[in-house]
């Protein structure tokens, strides 16, 4: 967490002025600072209250040999748990699977989400209806939707499996199992993407588009040259949160395949080690590694999007 803090400038010889501030703060700037901090304080307090202790505790556990079943064997082991995880092919297999699911589902969701946002924004008939229906899948509890999919894709009990040639059980193979998981993810979370993109789309000034049309820009040009750049902050948020969420995929896999045929994700691995094996040391190491991976992904996103990221100066 501390790594996110900007490097503290050593005090200048003059002692008082920070970089970029050549004069003492004016009254207005001081009021602005106060207001800024006041406005942020409640949110920061709530977030810190819930997470700081548990996160610190998880870091501590990850450095311990700590198995609830063998309480007397607990001892500090340094980074040994991390070594255990990183040297296991099971971790890397889960990592790869998680990566595939993330890339595939986020990519498809982005394209579909953009199309849906466009429909929600522009539809000339039944707009309220289509907006509501689009959002329904996101409202279904994931585990329940997953049971629905499981029944649907199981031969003899499901309508979807019955469309396939007889004897095909897609959930029992690596590739088709993953495909069903990705499909379930896409169906469920495309609305999330679409809604965020719609919010961004709503901010694109209409007359800018009209002016471009008058200037002879094609629909594609108007989309890529005007809408996309203006939607960049919204796109960032949509992609960022969806990617981070997809990387922690759990429910669909848990119900659909229980992780069989190498379809387990990193979160499933964390769950098995923490909750099933009660090995809190190794399980916490998995959690922290997942956390670090996701944090790196988030950092990359923000770098790529640069000034469009929240908190960056616009100009």
């Amino acid at each position, binding site marked *: 967490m501390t790594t996110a803090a900007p490097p503290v400038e050593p005090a200048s010889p003059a002692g008082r002025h920070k970089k970029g501030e050549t004069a003492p703060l004016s009254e207005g700037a001081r009021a602005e600072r106060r207001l800024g901090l006041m406005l942020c304080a409640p949110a920061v307090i709530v977030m810190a209250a819930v997470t700081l202790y548990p996160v610190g*505790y998880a870091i501590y556990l990850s450095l311990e040999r700590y*198995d*609830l*079943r*063998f*309480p007397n*064997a607990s001892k500090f082991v340094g980074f040994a748990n991390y070594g*255990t*995880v990183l040297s*296991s092919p*099971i*971790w890397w297999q889960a990592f790869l699977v998680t990566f595939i699911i993330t890339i595939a589902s986020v990519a498809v969701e982005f394209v579909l989400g953009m199309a849906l946002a466009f429909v929600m924004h522009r539809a000339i008939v039944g707009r309220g209806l289509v907006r509501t229906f689009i959002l329904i899948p996101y409202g279904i509890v994931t585990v329940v939707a997953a049971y629905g999919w499981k029944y649907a894709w*199981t*031969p*003899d*009990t499901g309508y979807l499996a019955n469309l396939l040639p007889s*004897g*095909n*059980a897609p*959930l*029992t193979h690596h590739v088709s199992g993953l495909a069903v998981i990705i499909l379930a993810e896409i169906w469920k979370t495309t609305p999330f993407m679409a809604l965020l993109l719609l919010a961004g789309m709503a901010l694109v000034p209409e007359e800018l588009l009209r002016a471009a049309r008058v200037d002879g820009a094609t629909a594609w040009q108007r989309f890529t040259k005007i809408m996309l750049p203006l939607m960049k902050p919204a796109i960032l948020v949509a992609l960022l949160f969806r990617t981070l969420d997809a990387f922690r995929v759990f429910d669909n896999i848990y119900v659909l*395949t*229980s*992780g*069989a*045929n190498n379809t*387990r994700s990193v979160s499933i*691995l964390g769950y*098995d*080690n923490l*909750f*099933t*094996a*009660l*090995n809190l040391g*190794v399980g916490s190491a*998995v959690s922290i590694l997942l956390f670090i991976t996701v944090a790196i992904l988030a950092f990359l996103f923000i770098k790529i999007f640069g000034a469009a990221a929240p908190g960056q100066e616009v100009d």
Partner: protein
Amino acid sequence: MFAAAAAAAVPVLAACGSSGGGSGRTATLNWYMFPDGSGSFATAAANCSKASNGAYTIKINVLPNDADTQRQQMVRRLAAKDSSLDILGLDVTWEAEFSEAGWILPFTGARRTAVENGTLPAAIKAAVWRNQLVAAPLNTNTQLLWYRKDLVPEPPTTWSQMVADATRLAKEGKPHYIEVQGAEYEGYTVLFNTLVASAGGSILNASSTSAQLGEPAVKAIQAIQQLAQSPAADPSWSNQHEDDNRLAFESGNAAFELNYPFIYPSALQNNPSLAKKIGWTQYPSLVAGQPSHVTIGGNDLAVSAYSKHPNQAFDAITCLRGSANQTTYAIKGGLPPTLTALYTDPALIKGGYPFAGAIYTALQNGVARPQTPAYQSVSLQISYNLSPPTSVSVGKLNTLKSRINDALNSKGLVP
């Protein structure tokens, strides 16, 4: 930190635990139990509370439906030394783990003798850890071979015969699947345990310190392969749990099913015409002429080590697993009893257990799951390394052996 949390919580919880009002100190015993749609646990709790003459009142705290979640909820509280748990409903696979962690109290002296008297030896064995009886068997369970009498007039007695019968039915174009658990989960470990035991071996050595496997495990693998390579395997086998097997059997495409007795009342209700054709017999054996040794399931009751009223809790358990209550659980809740005498009781047989005799025989030959505090990890390793059933090979046994040894010492990552 945990100790501090628990200490802070104790006064509050204890206050609602013991309503020490004057003369008769009635202890409130919190019974953490899995949900039971029939209400037979609630009836038993009320009856026992009444019969205690004010010694205790049993309050049921219902746990979620899924065994993993039940275990998580209790473990979370026990790890925080929560004194609001008194009686715990445990799956038979958790005893060693809970005992080793110091969460449950053993039954000693006369209490132990009282529990052992008249109880199925196999059920007792599953509740013993480090020579101590750490829980009292409440109900048991085991699998039988269920078959379609219309398709198979003479049920097979060996695994090979069963596969051969199913293969013949497939050739005749009749329903032929053999329904058995094969998803990557604990139920698949149970299958492997049953097959290894039926081949005369065991997964762990006698002292539960390392993996045994050996030649019987090879035979078990070969049995799985035999089924996997035959047309008798359900295409969904590698994704099937007990309930998936039941649904598949009820849909009419199967000739055999290896499953717990819950499938019979279910078939009676959902598909009465099919239910009439269901026959039952012993689980097929792996060694001709020898009986099969089927894994024993079920639930036990234990007393929490952090309970404020351990004595009353032990007494309450004696009452809750009494003969009358076990009959109720069996008939209303479908949970086979652990008291030997009930298996010849006409009330039970007529009350929905026409197969009581077959179950009793299976229980006599039954085998416990690997007994170790690390059972969950061992099970994850077995189901992972032997999945999917369609691609198991004898060559995987060496890896499995070393993974099981790691799991026993809580070393390494479990899948």
